């Protein structure tokens, strides 16, 4: 017991670890809520595309002196819109267009980065720098993630219907187009918040794994949201602490803990599926 206490208490005696943990939990929770919708909508790889595409936005924002978050947000949104435009106006398939757009933007971002002298570390943008989160960063993350989280929770019924059955949503008079772009905006916002924590490349993991874990464990959307957030927050805490002890990169540790939880759900969830069929028997023996 004492060992376990030390395991968590020692890292938390450092201020930078406290900030890192807080940032990881915030980002994890925001990504987890969104991931439930992305899983249903089949947009898992949209997160991948948008996150890569923010790179040129960050560099350009730096050059013209805007806050980096704004540049990143606009570039991410631009990627999603450009994908839609190119797909509607050519005979190339959607997944191909998505690949072309985000890789093109990422490549262009790398070229810009090579030409511009910045005080930003490319490694920090790519892989995140959770341990270097400043109090100001933390405020920024909290605001961006908070706005994204509130927006999703406020619209959660409408978004759910839209993701699950867009035709039906349209039929009962929901503003489907607005929901579509709303979801893209929230996605871009969340990614901007998450970049500080886990970097461009691993954001997509945080946007898929929690939803996938929850999807394996329950059929009800309310529970899915709760499980996803719980899994993500727990993984963020454990991953950050583990990374401190093994002296490894934080982002990958969080992602790998999430994957371990997914594996557990994958193994347990199949039995859970069996248990669900006899719902009455289960009430006393959920442990």
């Amino acid at each position, binding site marked *: 017991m004492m060992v376990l206490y030390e395991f968590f208490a020692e890292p938390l005696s450092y201020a930078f670890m406290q900030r890192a943990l807080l940032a990881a939990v915030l980002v994890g929770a925001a990504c987890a809520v969104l991931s439930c919708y992305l*899983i249903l909508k*089949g*947009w*898992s*790889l949209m*997160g*991948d595309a948008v996150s*890569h595409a923010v790179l040129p936005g960050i560099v350009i924002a730096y050059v013209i002196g805007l806050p980096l978050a704004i540049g990143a947000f606009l570039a991410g949104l631009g990627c999603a819109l450009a994908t839609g435009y*190119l797909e509607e*106006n*050519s*005979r*190339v*398939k959607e*997944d*191909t*267009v*998505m*690949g*072309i*757009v985000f*890789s*093109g933007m*990422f*490549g*262009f*971002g*790398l*070229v810009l*980065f*090579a*030409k511009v002298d910045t005080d930003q570390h*490319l*490694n920090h943008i*790519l*892989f995140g720098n959770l341990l270097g989160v400043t109090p100001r960063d933390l405020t920024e993350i909290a605001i961006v993630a908070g706005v994204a989280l509130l927006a999703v929770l406020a619209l959660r019924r409408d978004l759910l219907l839209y993701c699950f059955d867009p035709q039906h949503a349209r039929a009962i008079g929901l503003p489907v187009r607005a929901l579509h772009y709303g979801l893209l905006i929230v996605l871009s916002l969340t990614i901007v918040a998450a970049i500080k924590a886990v970097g461009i*490349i*691993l954001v*997509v*993991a945080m946007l*898929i*794994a929690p*939803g*996938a874990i929850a*999807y*394996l464990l329950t059929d009800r959307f309310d529970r899915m949201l709760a499980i996803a957030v719980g899994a993500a927050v727990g993984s963020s805490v454990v991953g950050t602490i583990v990374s401190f002890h*093994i*002296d*490894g*990169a934080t*982002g*990958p*540790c969080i*992602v*790998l803990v999430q*994957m371990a939880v*997914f594996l557990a759900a*994958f193994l347990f*969830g*199949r039995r859970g599926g069996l248990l669900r069929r006899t719902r009455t028997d289960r009430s006393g023996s959920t442990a």
Partner: protein
Amino acid sequence: MMSELLVPFTYDYMLKAMWVSALVGATCAFLSAFLMLRGWSLMGDALAHAIVPGVAGAYLLKLPYATGAFFAGLLAALGMAFVRSRTKLREDAVIGLVFTAFFATGLLMASINPTSVNIQTIVLGNILGISDEDAMQVVIISAVTLAVLILKWKDLMVVFFDEAHARSIGLSPFWLKVMFFTLLAAAVVAALQTVGACLVIAMVVTPGATAYLLTDRFDRLIILAVAIGTLTSFFGAYISYFLDGATGGVIVTLQTLIFLAAFYLAPKHGVLAARRRRNGALLPETGDADEVLK
């Protein structure tokens, strides 16, 4: 001025970078002609990320990087197939889960052993600084892949367009697809050294998609795609000399620019051509109707 432009050709490392890139570009472009037909584009991306721990492990153990890459790629492919067969999760979620898990493993390995594994080289490529040993592996992999493709492209074409027909003329779609994905994995492993894990997807998608906008005949599509892939990779490496790096970024930026040019200007399938056709074919008043229909 002229002599300045020729400077890259006077360095051995630049010559090596340019022709190795061109070879990789040609191989990937050949595959891209097939890949984008089937909606498998993101498989290329997933594979490129999934082989990263293999490459990192190979550098740690001082093995040829290609062996580690193949091993990791195979494991990832099996992992995706397994998770997919046992859950109701959508395919894109499964692909995303597995490749990010592998990629995170690679990053973690590199962060624990920063001296023996340079993660930036793996993720962003470093063709200008490639070792002779790695260059040799890239050349062998690309050459073999290209040779197999040249011998088998017609069979692959039949399978990709019409599996029933392929079966009726005695081809095995299953084995040809296995072969295709093996070749794709090989090309991805080679491309990793030129443009890095994050940009491999452009190499195996963009040239094919560009050619698809320019022609309706598949043999011409392949030739165009290979030409685009070869030239952009060669000149991308060339231009990166003047930028002191970012070779992968330059190559992919060139490819994207050419795609955008084709998207607007292609004689038959371009946006401008479609607009011209619409204006030519319809009278002004029916033009309004056309707008309404949209």
